[in-house]
């Protein structure tokens, strides 16, 4: 049996490993480095640069240097913000494309270039050809993202033997030398672009995942972006950088994606400062000749960074509570909280984990390497090099189909052990009905359209009276977390694999249509929309302020009253003047001015309940 390698294809960095005499080891490249930046840069002429040399081009040639491409893999345009320094394309609903010079690339193609480099490094280190691999993905990746990752591996000339979840892999790395143990652990995995939290039970070599949750758009990148906004404000006067756009905003129009070098330099400085602040209390950021003439030197303290990062890091709390509730456990039931992912080096993140789980997190795993080691162990299990270890993983998202009323009918609930099969019987609703369209969904929302559409297929019926044609459909989620659909005619017993048309492989015609629609939208007056949205917020805020003042206004100082009154006045004036951006600012100011009012209200409610 030929060798299988383990690969951690990360948002920021990637690694590759192989089993050696029963132990997982990570392989270094020709420069002796194990960590390969997941960056690809396309020079004017010649071969693309991959890894470290490409990472050095980020500030020099930002428009032709692709990083964090994992955020776009298996995603459709419009779902993911375009706050990167390279231009994106794709009509809303169509797969994201990356435009470099005159060429368009898919995220899979970019990832494949990184994988090819890892594959070549491993072949050199091991002195043998590499054709088979285990590749990790965030546990919360959906079917489309898993399929796209698998496709990237195949483009790189690899047979992908398994897609394994990152936190599960990290648990393998942690537990390999504790195979006699029985324990329950949580893996808190905050990487560059994604967050996962998984709870596992370890029992004599069986690693059973009990529950998992996460957010595939939450990571260190978001902290970097927030820090760039802060830096840009300090630099002052320069263009509002799109590199600083925050998560949740719609992507900037394609013509706007060309970003001048300054934001890329700010980003570089921000990342360096963030890293140093994990160990130091305060750093100096030097930006010589930042706009060609001026230089800038400023101080950033850890406390300031924490204030900037807090709202982002805090988002992990909901997922941790959710995973505990799903596993039906309380923090005291857990034996360890394992931290992995580079962003967990940040003291603020560790403090939050301590707060949520009420214990000191376990930092014995190298946050950059644990996932790759785990992928390597899983490769060893599959090749037979690792004995007495087995992984029971789960599907992170519920799988269902759309019912007549537009609701989601769950067929395989989230956190089910995989591989798993579930059957569903379909009959014709009218006599002679020839087929039925079945829409497959993934997600946790009751309303079908709020979930991720995996795709759809046409189920053919034999000609028969109403309710007489019966076709059984089997949904299978394999060990990779990938869906397969099998239909069986109950009369003929004929089985066939149903091709689910991926929602992301839309037909040319559909793309054409979406393109037309998006062009229509492009002519909509943007400032009109900004104003309408801001006005909606004011309409909500103003009556809330009035009610709150009536209830509890007597407890505020005269100064506070004056400040609120001024902020209210500014909002009202901005509405009358019809100035969208002024109204947005006024809303934010009023939000800020009424913070103490909100705190007082909550305190009063809490005090009332304790009586």
């Amino acid at each position, binding site marked *: 049996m030929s060798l299988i390698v383990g690969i951690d294809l990360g948002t920021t960095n990637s690694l590759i490993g192989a089993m050696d005499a029963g132990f997982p080891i990570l392989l270094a490249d020709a420069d002796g480095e194990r960590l390969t930046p997941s960056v690809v840069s396309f020079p004017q002429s010649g071969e693309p640069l991959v890894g470290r040399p490409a990472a050095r081009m980020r500030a020099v040639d930002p428009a032709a240097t692709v990083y964090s491409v994992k955020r776009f893999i298996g995603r459709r345009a419009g779902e993911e913000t375009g706050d990167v320094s390279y231009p994106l394309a794709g009509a809303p609903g169509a797969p994201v494309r990356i435009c470099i010079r005159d060429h368009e690339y898919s995220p899979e193609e970019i990832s494949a270039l990184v994988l090819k480099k890892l594959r070549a490094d491993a072949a050199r280190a091991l002195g043998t050809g590499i054709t088979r691999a285990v590749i990790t993905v965030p546990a919360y990746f959906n079917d489309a993202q898993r399929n796209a990752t698998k496709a990237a591996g195949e483009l790189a000339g690899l047979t992908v033997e398994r897609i394994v979840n990152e936190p599960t892999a990290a648990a393998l790395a942690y537990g390999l030398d504790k195979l006699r143990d029985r324990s329950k652990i949580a893996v808190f995995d905050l990487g560059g672009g994604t967050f996962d939290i998984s709870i596992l039970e370890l029992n004599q070599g069986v690693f059973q995942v009990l529950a998992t949750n996460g957010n595939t758009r939450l990571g260190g990148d978001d902290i970097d972006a927030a820090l760039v906004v802060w830096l840009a404000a300090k630099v002052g006067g320069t263009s509002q950088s799109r590199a600083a756009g925050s998560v949740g905003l719609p992507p900037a129009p394609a013509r706007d994606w060309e970003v001048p070098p300054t934001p890329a330099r700010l980003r570089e400085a921000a990342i360096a400062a963030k890293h140093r602040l994990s160990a130091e209390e305060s750093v100096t950021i030097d930006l010589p000749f930042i706009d060609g003439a001026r230089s800038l030197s400023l101080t950033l303290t850890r406390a300031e960074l924490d204030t900037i990062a807090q709202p982002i890091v805090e988002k992990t709390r909901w997922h941790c509570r959710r995973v505990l509730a799903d596993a039906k456990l309380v923090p005291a039931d857990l034996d360890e909280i394992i931290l992995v992912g580079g962003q967990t080096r940040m003291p603020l993140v560790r403090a939050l984990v301590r707060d949520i789980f009420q214990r000191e997190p376990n930092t014995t795993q190298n946050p950059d390497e644990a996932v790759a080691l785990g992928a390597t162990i899983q490769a060893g299990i599959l090749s*037979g090099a690792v004995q007495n270890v087995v992984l029971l993983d789960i599907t992170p998202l519920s799988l269902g189909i759309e019912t007549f009323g537009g609701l989601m009918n769950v067929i395989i609930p989230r956190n089910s052990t995989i591989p798993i099969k579930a059957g569903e019987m379909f009959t014709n609703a009218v006599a002679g009905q020839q087929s039925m369209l079945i829409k497959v969904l993934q997600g946790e929302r009751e309303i079908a359209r709020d979930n991720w559409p995996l795709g759809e297929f046409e189920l053919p019926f034999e000609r028969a009276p109403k309710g007489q044609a019966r076709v059984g459909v089997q949904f299978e989620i394999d060990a990779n977390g990938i869906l397969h659909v099998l239909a069986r005619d109950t009369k003929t017993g004929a089985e066939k694999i149903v091709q689910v048309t991926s929602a992301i492989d839309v037909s040319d015609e559909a793309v054409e249509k979406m393109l037309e629609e998006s062009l229509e939208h492009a002519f909509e007056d943007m400032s009109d929309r900004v104003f309408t949205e801001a006005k909606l917020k004011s309409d909500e805020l103003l009556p809330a302020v009035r009610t709150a003042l009536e*209830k509890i206004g007597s407890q505020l100082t005269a100064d506070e009253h004056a400040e609120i009154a001024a902020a209210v006045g500014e909002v009202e004036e901005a509405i009358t003047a019809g100035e969208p951006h002024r109204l947005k600012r006024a809303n934010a100011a009023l939000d800020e001015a009424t913070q103490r009012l909100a*705190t007082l209200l909550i305190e009063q409610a809490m005090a009332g309940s304790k009586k």
Partner: protein
Amino acid sequence: MPDHFAALDQPRRPWLDDGALKECFHRASAAWHPDVAGSGDAARFAAASAAYSALRDPVGRLRHLLELEAPGHLARPSAIPADSADLFMRLAEFRQALNAFQKKAGAATNALARALLAADREALAQRANALHDELEAAHDAALIELRALDAGWEPRAADAPERLAALLQRFAYLSKWRAQLGESLFQLQS
């Protein structure tokens, strides 16, 4: 129909020890999971996995036991047990109140509007906690009855299938309500 008890080497009884059942499933996985080089057996693992998810909670286990032993008792329509009708009404009222609250809370996108709802939220949370305690007590009582039924399981009394069916019905309602209330509590604390 598969025999889930046999698939995991368990006695065909209403009550099973959680820990022992899990041990059996883990042993089966270690032997038959398709990844295990040499002994992996996809079909046997699938049977063990399906059996574990059916047997691990009383609802699935009692339903399967009836399927195997007295399928006739499964078909009967199930009304809410009389002694739970009052609890059910209060749960329904609570859920209505929670829905109304969540609509308001969903519309409140700024901190101040949310703060105005804090008192309502707290009152609902207290109601939810009281209902939770009550449901847990009802569930514990059902478990005691399950143990009693299990103790007199061999030889089987004539009314055993009937008692089993009644108990299944009780657990089915309780487990649905506990899940709903657990979700409500989670949402209130978010």
